[in-house]
């Protein structure tokens, strides 16, 4: 049977997660329990949501450098307005999503580099977050807190949530017409245009959807940490990009995989725990993440070459 390239793309992320998980269980058998898994993957939910948001932007060949600042901002809103006056909180979120759609339109119409525009936006979101919460504080709305700490039978919440996120986004991005058009724009802008679709509309929608997932990431993060501060999620920018890449996504060409992205986010989360189980000094943890990223990319290059050789034969 010939494997499709999208299946090949999922092999490496799934394998690296499995290897990592096996290593963790081997070193720390106690992790193989409900509580253990919960601890291992707890922080994965907001990262997975942010990764999905980044993936949507990347599927139309752009990159969002404001992801971390925006998720921080959303966390601050969730810990303040959403908790005290939910209606205003929801309105702010809707406004933020509209801004995201607007950014998509501006980037397309003026042919601007998304990196610089979102860089500018990262300052804006960061500033708004600081205005909302100059010092760490706020509180998670009760229902969010409940949602993030609920203990479903058999499988911990983090796993359940990850599966739901993967399933829903897989449906939207990989199965629905809307997802087809988004990826079509990433794959061949001109042919989508020639078939009579509005590319600017499709891009605006992709950005808006990314905004929605980033909002959810902020809310989920507050549910876990119970309080927020303006810098709470700054590292999400880099984590989300790395998650998409680890999950088999590519920077251009609309080649993305929501399931892969969620797996990538889980892998990144697990890598941290793994390294501490390995008794690798905390000094080297960031470096090891960089090395993992490089190894995965090298593996993928190798696999692509093998695949190409097979095809040419």
């Amino acid at each position, binding site marked *: 049977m010939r494997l499709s390239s999208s299946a090949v793309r999922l092999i490496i992320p799934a394998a690296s997660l499995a290897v990592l998980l096996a290593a963790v269980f081997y070193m720390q058998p106690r992790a193989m329990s409900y509580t253990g898994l919960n601890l291992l993957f707890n922080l994965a939910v907001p990262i997975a949501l942010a990764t999905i948001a980044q993936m949507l932007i990347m599927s139309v060949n752009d990159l969002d450098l404001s992801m971390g600042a925006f998720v921080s901002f959303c966390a601050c809103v969730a810990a303040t307005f959403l908790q005290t006056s939910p209606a205003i909180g929801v309105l702010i979120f809707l406004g933020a999503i509209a801004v995201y759609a607007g950014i998509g339109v501006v980037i397309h119409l*003026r042919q601007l580099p998304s990196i*610089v525009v979102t860089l500018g936006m990262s300052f804006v979101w960061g*500033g708004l977050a600081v205005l909302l919460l100059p010092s760490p504080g706020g509180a998670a709305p009760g229902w969010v807190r409940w949602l993030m700490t609920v203990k479903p039978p058999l499988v911990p919440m983090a796993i359940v949530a990850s599966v739901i996120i993967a399933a829903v986004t897989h449906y939207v991005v990989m199965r629905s017409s809307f997802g087809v058009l988004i990826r079509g724009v990433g794959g061949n802008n001109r042919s989508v245009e020639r078939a009579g679709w509005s590319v600017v509309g499709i891009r605006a929608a992709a950005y808006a959807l990314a905004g929605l997932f980033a909002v959810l990431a902020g809310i989920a993060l507050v549910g876990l940490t119970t309080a927020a501060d303006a810098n709470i999620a700054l590292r999400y920018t880099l984590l989300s990009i790395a998650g998409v890449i680890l999950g088999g996504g590519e920077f251009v060409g609309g080649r993305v995989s929501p399931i892969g992205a969620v797996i990538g986010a889980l892998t990144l989360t697990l890598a941290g725990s793994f390294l501490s189980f390995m008794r690798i000094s905390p000094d080297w943890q960031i470096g090891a*993440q*960089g090395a993992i990223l490089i190894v995965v*990319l090298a593996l993928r290059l190798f696999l692509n070459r093998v695949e190409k050789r097979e095809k040419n034969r």
Partner: protein
Amino acid sequence: MTALTAKPWVWSFAAAILVWVITVLFTGGSSSVGLSQATLTFAAFSVIVGIGQMFVITLGPGNIDLSVPATMTLSGTLALKVMDVQDSMIALGLLIAILVGVAIGIGNYALIKLLRIPPIIATLSMSFIVQSCAIWTNRGLRIKPPETLSDFTTSYSFGVPNVALVALVLSLAAWFLLEKTTYGRWISAIGQSSFAARMAGIPVDGTRFITYVLCAVLAAVAGYLLASFSGGAALNMGAEYLLMSIAVVVIGGTAVAGGNSNVPGIWGASLFMFLVVSMLNTYGFGAGVRLILTGLIIIAVILAAGGRRVAR
């Protein structure tokens, strides 16, 4: 006059001067010397890293170096450790810093070329590793810089901060490189169209490689100076220079689409960025407003610059 207003860097200088005047007026003129000296000092660091980033961005869309902060931290830490508070080791420390830059630059381009990954993710992965090396080196006590070096970086010649003079010398060198040498022509050509550059006989890979090394070396030198200036290396000392280095390039009038770089604009933008901060501080605005304004300025500049391109 039209020739002057046509130069994109004029605007960043005009804005910097305007903000300076407003701030000085608000404080009744008493702060003019102190404000200027502080501005020059802090702008100097942004200028040095900004120039390196400018060279990379000139190479065209997609080219960016995210390893700047990690490079600064590692070179600062390593250099201070090697110098070990001895004045006799100052030159060796600088050499170490430069070597760190060379090594990181080579690593960056090796990843870009060998793994065929976009510069943004290559330099990002590299920065993770470099950051870890810095953490590992930095363990233990905070090492002070050699006294002579520390004095040099914090004092003034003719009323101008020494670090600003260093930045000025480096800027002149960068300007000469860009305007007067074949290398400058080459990076500009590559930024406008890397395919056309290749077909005009330019060694594209070699030029890009040198550029990434140059950017890392400048970041390393900035890290060396900053660590000496602030009395020791801190792990997060480079953090704010990631966005800053890109922001000063954009505001300074360098085309984000590549091919067109602008050394004076880096100065204007660096002075402006610091002055906006001090102005808002003087008026009692907090960090939030400052960040929002910075972001809006970047977006406004890119919108205006993009508009020029469309109009033509």
